[in-house]
């Protein structure tokens, strides 16, 4: 054990090590609590991902309709009609869940297809506008899941490192110093007893 040679086996060191171990264990408990909370958050976010397949199907449906409209009206006519559609505006804020920074996408202004006269193109544009908002929400969920998963991975590593390496090492250090101190105490006791016995024999 490499560490043994580096510590001074004194009572002061023992007290300090015990304090540190208590602190580490408390830290591990906090990390475990954070892990549980993030796992809960992750499972709730994963439920939102279930809508992805429906969203993809709707997007494909809108794309099929768009192909019809583009074929009917031509590239340039569709492109110029699309210019007049006002743009969607969004804001990205940050929210913190157990110290993990998660993006929150807010649609501040929806786009409007009111300037489109062609029925088919209007229908496709209106559908895509709704789908874009859903896509943003899905992107937010995916980003959240990615960040939470990464954080969970890091917490797991930390908890494992504490559980499997740091805490046992501290426990071993403490136990080593305690054994050493016990031996020193015993040695001192034997010495005192020996001195007492020697002194008693001299008196008699």
């Amino acid at each position, binding site marked *: 054990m490499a560490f043994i040679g580096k510590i001074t086996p004194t009572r002061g060191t023992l007290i300090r090590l015990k304090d540190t171990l208590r602190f580490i264990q408390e830290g591990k408990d906090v990390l475990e609590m954070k892990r549980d909370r993030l796992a809960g958050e992750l499972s709730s976010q994963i439920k939102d991902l279930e809508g992805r397949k429906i969203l993809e199907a709707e997007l494909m449906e809108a794309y099929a309709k768009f192909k019809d409209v583009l*074929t009917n009206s031509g590239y340039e006519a569709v492109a110029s009609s699309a210019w*007049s559609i006002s743009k969607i505006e969004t804001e990205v804020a940050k929210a913190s869940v157990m110290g993990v920074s998660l993006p929150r996408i807010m649609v501040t202004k929806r786009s409007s297809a009111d300037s489109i006269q062609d029925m088919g193109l209007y229908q496709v544009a209106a559908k895509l506008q709704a789908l874009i908002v859903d896509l943003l929400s899905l992107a937010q969920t995916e980003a959240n899941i990615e960040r939470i998963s990464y954080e969970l991975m890091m917490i797991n590593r930390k908890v494992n490192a504490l559980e499997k390496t740091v805490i046992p090492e501290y426990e071993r250090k403490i136990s080593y110093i305690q054994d050493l101190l016990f031996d020193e105490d015993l040695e001192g006791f034997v010495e005192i007893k020996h001195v007492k016995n020697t002194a008693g024999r001299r008196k008699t």
Partner: protein
Amino acid sequence: MKTPTTIYFVARTHGLKRHLLKHEDLQRISRAKDLAEIHSLLLQSDYSERLSKISPLKLDAYQLERIVYEVLSERSYYLLKIARGSIRRLIEGFCRRTEVENLKRVVRAIHGNESMNRTQFLPVPREYQTVNFLALLECRRVGEIIKLLKETPFRDLGDKVGLYERYNNPLILEAYLDRIYYSVLEENLKRVAGGSRIQHLVGTEIDIKNLSSITSLQYSRASPDLLKEIIIEYYYRLPRNLVSKLVELPYEEILKLPLGPPYRESITKAIDLANNNMLPQAENILWQYFYSCVEKESIKNPGSLVYVISYLFLCRKEARNLATIAAGKQFKMGPERIQSLLFV
């Protein structure tokens, strides 16, 4: 009594009309397996000169659409080049619709805060431009366009800027551009012999445009106030009071009004198609009727100027059909599906 100029001009148009693709040609093109085959089929037509510069394997639908509209421009402005006197003014007035379409594109781009470039304009030869399109590309606000249009036939567009700002909808300006276009065309029509038959075609076109705007915008639940502003105030077979009632009614109830027989059938079909979610086909049905009128007029009046105007309309129909086939082939649509979107 027709003047020799008119006779010569109509005779030239007869010759030019022979260059248009026939119905069977379009059917064959729509059955082509890909764009490369379309390329080879079109090599025997007016499109050959431009197409021969592109490899068939590199041809895409967008390129073909550009070529088609370049040829359309060439055909329209060729007539203008050979026309003289009042006929020239009429053709000039008619061809101005390309400029109107370009102006609409500029308005849309400015409304959506988009920048466009010169390749996104429909081609108009420099010598026939009444508007400086390159200067319009620099505009960033509608007010700047109005300033540039001061010395052009579209100078009155400024009257509608307030309304455009109130509704925040470029359709107001687009409709007014159409209104200006048709009023100039109407003036030109009064000066030519046989203008009444042409008036029939143009009047039908405006009626169809109004009906198309009303049905489309009612489908998108636009307000009746906005619809009133988008109507082209020229009434041919749709009386003013009928149009006023049409804009007030919800989409599903349009048929309750006494629409004239020519339009009733088309509107009924359009509503049926829209209810079956076949919106592009519903959009086309009214224009199918219009082009059938154009064909009839060209057959009935082979010796008058209406034949010339019919030819110009048929050039537009061909361009639109070819662009549709090209896009359909690009998306690998079957011939039946493409043919359902054609004006036949």
